[in-house]
């Protein structure tokens, strides 16, 4: 008995020791040679994913005894619609509008559908552009109120010789230009901060307008005989102009807001009677003594050199607003240029000018005020400056509410205030007042007889760029002008390129 008890105690002790000692104590084996490398164990193939079922599926058999959708309402008597017959009255009255809109609209909709489904715009583009997008020939057209339709073609050559050089050539006819030929060679982004442009153009403009020189009132009736162009009153007349122009410009942009441009041009103009559907008393010579319209008979041949500096810090403070509607910042542009005649042209004068714009943001939207001051002058006398080159006011860009180039003289000053507001992402509205006049010389500047133009309109733009403006403008003259402009109101093209 004592022996069995001792064995039991010993076994219990042995078990206790076995449990408490770490397994490695028993597992340790004397180190031996390294085991040979084995193939990695083959992992079982991943279990195909099981669909996760959170609700039993609805199937054809589970819904077989359910009613059809149209029977869900279980109505034995429907709502009373007896009064709806009266709707036929407005329906009938509006039917012509409905038909007209449908007749016009559905073909456009189907056309757009085809355009997108079959990528027609790309196919059309491939007719006018080559594969590399470096050569393009396409038609252009635009219309101007008072001048009609201009149609032509444009040739574009890009990335010449693998560089950023580009050539644009254009020929068009009609509208303000009976003929318009132009070419442009540009270095574009070839050089980091400088762009060189070489341009040439030949324009035949059969119906340019001339109202006289000075700030006089515009009379309706032609005079009984031709009068001094620098008389008290203005009269509407037309003339023809042929202009040949070659210009070169170097624009240096040391930083994003600052541009310094040096330009030069040779310009040869000849003038004559207006052409087209004009009556005799609309001709310039019928209204004005042509000897008082400097260089009208002889034409003008001049060279022009100019230095222009532009500081453009206009900006769009909010990323939610279109870049075409700056609502803060400044634009300051000043220039000075010298004109010298050749080939018998006695022109010798300095042209100078300043354009100052300030955008004041009133509120997000944006709603803003655009303030502008524009002055332009020439130092030469009336015998030294061609009538055509006198500073001008009037038209959709300078002194709205008046005829294009209605006022011209040796000095012009204009101030403008425009209230701009956004109506939607693509459209904005504006109201403006333009005040200005021309003077014989800067010393004559006064607030007397200022010309006031006012109006408003709608501007269309994309998120990034200006598309166009529709303006209704009037003035103390009481004429009303409607204009559609594809140029932004504040023209920053080089002076040598403007008209």
């Amino acid at each position, binding site marked *: 008995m004592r022996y069995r008890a001792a064995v039991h105690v010993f076994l219990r002790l042995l078990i206790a020791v076995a449990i408490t000692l770490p397994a490695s104590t028993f597992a340790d084996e004397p180190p031996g040679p390294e085991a040979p490398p084995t193939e990695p164990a083959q992992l079982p193939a991943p279990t195909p994913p099981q669909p996760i079922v959170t609700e039993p599926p609805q199937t054809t058999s589970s819904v077989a005894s359910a009613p059809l959708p149209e029977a869900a309402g279980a109505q034995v008597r429907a709502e009373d619609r007896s009064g709806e017959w009266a709707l036929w009255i407005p*329906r009938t009255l509006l039917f012509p509008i409905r038909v007209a809109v449908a007749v016009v609209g559905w073909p456009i909709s189907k056309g757009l559908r085809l355009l997108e489904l079959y990528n027609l715009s790309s196919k059309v583009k491939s007719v006018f552009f080559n594969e590399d997008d470096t050569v393009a020939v396409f038609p252009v057209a635009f219309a101007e109120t008072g001048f009609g339709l201009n149609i032509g073609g444009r040739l574009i050559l890009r990335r010449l010789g693998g560089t950023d050089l580009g050539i644009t050539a254009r020929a068009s006819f009609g509208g303000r230009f009976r003929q318009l030929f132009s070419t442009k060679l540009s270095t574009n982004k070839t050089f980091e901060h400088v762009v060189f442009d070489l341009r040439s153009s030949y324009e035949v403009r059969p119906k340019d307008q001339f109202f006289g020189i000075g700030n006089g009132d515009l009379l309706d009736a032609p005079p009984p005989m031709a009068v001094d162009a620098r008389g008290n009153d203005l009269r509407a007349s037309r003339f023809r102009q042929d202009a040949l122009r070659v210009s070169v410009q170097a624009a240096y942009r040391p930083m994003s807001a600052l541009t310094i441009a040096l330009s030069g041009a040779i310009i040869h103009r000849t003038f004559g009677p207006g052409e087209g559907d004009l009556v005799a008393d609309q001709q310039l010579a019928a209204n004005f003594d042509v000897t008082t319209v400097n260089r009208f008979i002889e034409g003008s041949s001049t060279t022009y050199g100019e230095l222009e500096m532009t500081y453009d810090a206009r900006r769009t403070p909010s990323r939610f607003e279109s870049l075409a509607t700056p609502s803060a910042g400044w634009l300051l542009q000043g220039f000075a240029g010298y004109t010298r005649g050749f080939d018998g042209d006695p022109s010798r004068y300095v042209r100078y000018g300043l354009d100052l714009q300030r955008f004041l943001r009133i509120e997000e939207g944006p709603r803003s005020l655009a303030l502008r001051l524009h002055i332009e002058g020439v130092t030469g006398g009336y015998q030294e400056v061609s009538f055509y080159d006198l500073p001008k006011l009037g038209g959709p860009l300078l002194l709205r509410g008046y005829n294009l180039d209605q006022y011209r003289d040796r000095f012009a000053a204009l101030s403008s205030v425009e209230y701009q507001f956004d109506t939607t992402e693509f459209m904005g509205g504006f109201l403006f007042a333009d005040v200005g006049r021309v003077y014989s010389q800067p010393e004559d500047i006064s607030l007397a007889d200022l010309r006031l133009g006012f109006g408003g309109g709608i501007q269309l733009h994309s998120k990034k760029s200006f598309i166009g403006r529709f303006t209704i403008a009037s003035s103390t003259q009481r004429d009303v002008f409607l204009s559609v402009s594809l140029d932004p109101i504040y023209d920053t093209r080089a002076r040598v390129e403007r008209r």
Partner: protein
Amino acid sequence: MKILSPAVVVLVTGCASGFDTVRYQNAAPVTIVNDRVHLPTQPASLDFVKKSEYFEAFALEPVLRFTAVKPKRRAANVSSLDEVPDSTWFRNRIGVRELSLDEIRDGSKAGDSPMLHKPWTIKSTKVGGVSIGFIIEDATGARFVLKFDQKGLPETETAADVIGARLFWACGYHTPDDQIVTFKRSELVIGKGAKVKPLFGDAYPLTEKILEDKLSRVNIAGDGSIRGLASRFLIGKPLGPWPRQGVRGDDPNDTIPHELRRDLRGAYAMFSWLDHVDMKADQTVDMYVADPTNPKLNYVMHYNIDFGKTLGVFAEAGDQIFAGHSYAIDLSQVAASLMSLGLYRRGWEGRTNPNIPGVGIFESKGYAPGAWKPVTPSYLPLLDTDRFDAFWGAKIIIRFTEAQLREAVKQGQFSDPRAVDYLTKVLVERQRKTARFWFDLVNPVDRVEIAGDQLCFDDLSVKYELDRRPVSYRATGFDFDGRATGSLTVHPGSAGRVCVAGVKPTASEGGYTIVKLETQRGSLPPTLVHLAKDPQGALRVIGLRRL
């Protein structure tokens, strides 16, 4: 004596009686419909053509709709209780039962995340489109569309998509299984024969160079990981979007014109809540599917897809602050701005950006539930939404608890901890604003049922503490012909539960009884509850007519 024309007679008598004319079958209300009748021939695929659709939406349809002078029609696919039965379009979930947090988290999950089965093999790029995407297969062969956030806006679209997909699924819509994934470049391999598929033109081989170029335009984290959205391929064959109006002509199961579908019109409340401003036809897809239990039977299922621009992401990513408040071209706002010379203050002015990484421009202060607009008016069912449709939608969304919303938002996997709190808070505020608005236009009675001889219902405005104004109720009985049988006693209970005592069947056939419930708070219109005796002789609710 001159005999009046029938139309005039009906008009006159209709006016004289002054009582709604609708009556219901004496039958249990329908909770599910059969639109799964076998379709042996696959319907034709429809295209979404953006230019054409936008032109119609902005220029053509407004004039055609105005000149059509169509009467407003109530939704045509509702049950007698003014609810939407289950169908291939919609399945009642949170509207009729509690959803667990797990269900909210998983949504329409249909399988493992592809994160568990790498590497992924690219089969092709996404067809066309501006944004980058690929068709991938995970190691098990499951296919996904892999999409990415816009560069510079990490987490925004991917988060919005998974959150939106889960919430729409919980509301009852059919949505794809969208999941956020992260991967390293080495876990993405180009499959043999993988192609780049432009929108137009021929496909061409996808090379490593092209892949690297595409991936250089997505957000890549400092550790080289890339975040994306994996959207599992829907089962079946895609048929393109569903028609914006009318029916799919070659689908005999599609019998209710879409502009009369409650489930499509009522989604206005969900869309406005979640700011689903990019809603248009190509955010929908019909799939020709085989029945799960009998693959020889086929029908069309209808899905809502692409929620990446919800929760203010569209406004943020597209720099379009007006989104949700105005159409891209909104003539009414243009006119108001022009006539007021810019003084008219638009709904989005003053909108604030929370500036939290991953979160769009999403807030509740300027949110107007009844004035919300998608960016384009091209999704026509929304133009026909009436207050009953929006009320139905609001009734569904108010059932989400804050915990459920937070669980859904957490699936966005935001790196900034503020994002979950902010989005949850705004979702709750917009949810309550939405419900409060529509519950003020339609008598918010719900869960109407007979308990003994009492007719009981919930006043949702009280139940969800949306309106603390004093309220009383009035109930009046009518027979089948609209003759009053007398006032009934109302016992307001707690938590918005109200019971009407003494409801007895009338002498009309089948004991047809109508109880007019009036909630005297503001100027709420009444609700008519239609009752009749069941085969056992007990009164039951057979219809609910909201006025």
